[in-house]
């Protein structure tokens, strides 16, 4: 099954045959099996991905990734730069659709519903599966408007009071309210980096998502701001399914319950975080997390 972003369909049609014979895929073992270790107490699966491959033009970036992402838990994706972890993360809310020449094959389901169903409204999907990026990117608007924007366009608030309540609650959940309550109508870009990132998390939360994707949310922050975000991730875990891409091994070990290790576009190993960081089953995982390559 192939899913193409409508605007890239034409280009893919000409590129698809080339991609099957590209060099990087030929160099990789075709029979590779992801090493999987289940949780001692299985969690309910929220997102199910099956044989997901991603091509950027003729180059295959991801090779048959299959993984189940559990609800009310943090799943961390780790791996060296260019290993495909961010690419895979972006598949989960169809962000790759916006990249010209990108093509995704395979199946991704949220609660059994096909995310790549052509009838699916992508804007609505991205409200259900929110995303927080590496660099805080608040809108050049007030703090209030940053958070209110999503609920307003999705029609989540019936009245002005409703909207205010959503904004306050979202800022509270993002542990930012107390710091900004007296200046809700000042611009969001005037906040510190850590506060901006929490504002972006509040903005994601405001539309009541089911899944929150975070692409290196702390890499542009200082250690204190990082600690606050990590604390926040731990609190959000009670209500959301969280997937985080991080370059910091310590961060993955601290915040996640499950860890998936990607290398050269392959999902090498996934398992409970404590096991992945104390005695991983795969030698490549071991070599990466102990700093022997990467």
């Amino acid at each position, binding site marked *: 099954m192939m899913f193409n972003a409508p605007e890239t369909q034409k280009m893919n049609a000409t590129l698809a045959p080339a991609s099957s014979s590209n060099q990087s895929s030929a160099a990789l073992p075709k029979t590779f099996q992801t090493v999987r270790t289940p949780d001692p107490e299985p969690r309910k699966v929220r997102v199910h991905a099956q044989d997901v491959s991603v091509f950027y033009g003729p180059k295959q970036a991801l090779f048959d990734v299959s993984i189940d992402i559990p609800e009310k838990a943090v799943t961390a994706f780790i791996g060296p730069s260019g290993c495909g972890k961010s690419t895979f993360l972006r598949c989960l809310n169809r962000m790759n659709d916006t990249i010209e020449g990108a093509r995704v094959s395979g199946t991704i389901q949220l609660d059994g519903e096909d995310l790549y169903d052509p009838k699916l409204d992508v804007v609505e999907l991205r409200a259900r599966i929110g995303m927080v990026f590496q660099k805080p990117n608040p809108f050049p608007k007030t703090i209030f408007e940053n958070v209110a924007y999503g609920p307003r366009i999705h029609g989540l608030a019936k009245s002005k009071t409703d909207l205010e309540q959503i904004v306050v609650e979202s800022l509270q959940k993002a542990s930012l309210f107390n710091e900004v309550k007296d200046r809700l109508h000042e611009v969001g870009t005037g906040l510190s980096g850590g506060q901006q990132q929490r504002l972006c998390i509040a903005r994601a939360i405001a539309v009541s998502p089911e899944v929150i994707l975070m692409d290196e949310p702390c890499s542009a922050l200082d250690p204190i701001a990082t600690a606050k975000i990590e604390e926040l991730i731990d609190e959000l875990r009670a209500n959301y399914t969280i997937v985080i891409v991080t370059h910091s091994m310590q961060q993955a070990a601290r915040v996640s319950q499950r860890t998936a290790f990607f290398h050269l576009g392959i999902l090498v190993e996934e398992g409970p975080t404590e096991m992945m960081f*104390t005695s*991983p089953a795969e030698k490549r995982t071991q070599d990466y*997390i102990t*700093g*022997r*390559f*990467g």
Partner: protein
Amino acid sequence: MVAHTVTSFDEELAAIDRIIRDMGHFAAAMVDAATSALLEGEQEKARRVIADDAVMDARQRELDERAITLIAKRQPMADDLRTVVGAIRIASDLERIGDLAKNLGKRVSAVDRSTAPQTFTHSIETMAALVHQQLERVVDIYIARDAEALKPLRADDEKIDVQYTAVFRELLTYMMEDPRNITACTHLLFCAKNLERIGDHVTNIAENAYYVMTGTQLPANRPKVDETGTPSAVI
């Protein structure tokens, strides 16, 4: 094993391994010297063993410092993490072995050779030889990272326990034969108990080493043949 991207990380881990190896061989030499001092009644040798314990303590502190610095600096993961934590625990067992060897040395002056039963020396010598061999073996296996060799080694602790039970029974007999033997035999019994405890520390080291190498624990139940606590041991 592939080298770390940061070379000094490998050097720091190697330095920790070297301390374990040195402490292991030093402890084995202490046990050897303490036993021969006891059996030959050599006071001077016994004093040297007592003094040597300070060396073991200093080496253990050095290892602790290096290990803690390494954790703070490198935040080791997976096998590296197990190696560092394992080394701290192994060094602690080796330090305890040093203490027990020192205790053996201290008893040399208390055991009056003239009243101690001469025939006894053979059984305690056999026991000490077993302990010494086990200790050397576990350190060599750890340095060579040969996980499979640890299983038979751990099982071999049984031989020490069997020998200890034999020594215990033998000493009881001597004490019953002649009450004048009681003082010397009681000290010798403590010596035998110390050797048996050293065997237990070797077993601990083997278990820690296995975890370092494989990331899994050896099964909890291992053969245990110390019958001195059971009624049948009393003749």
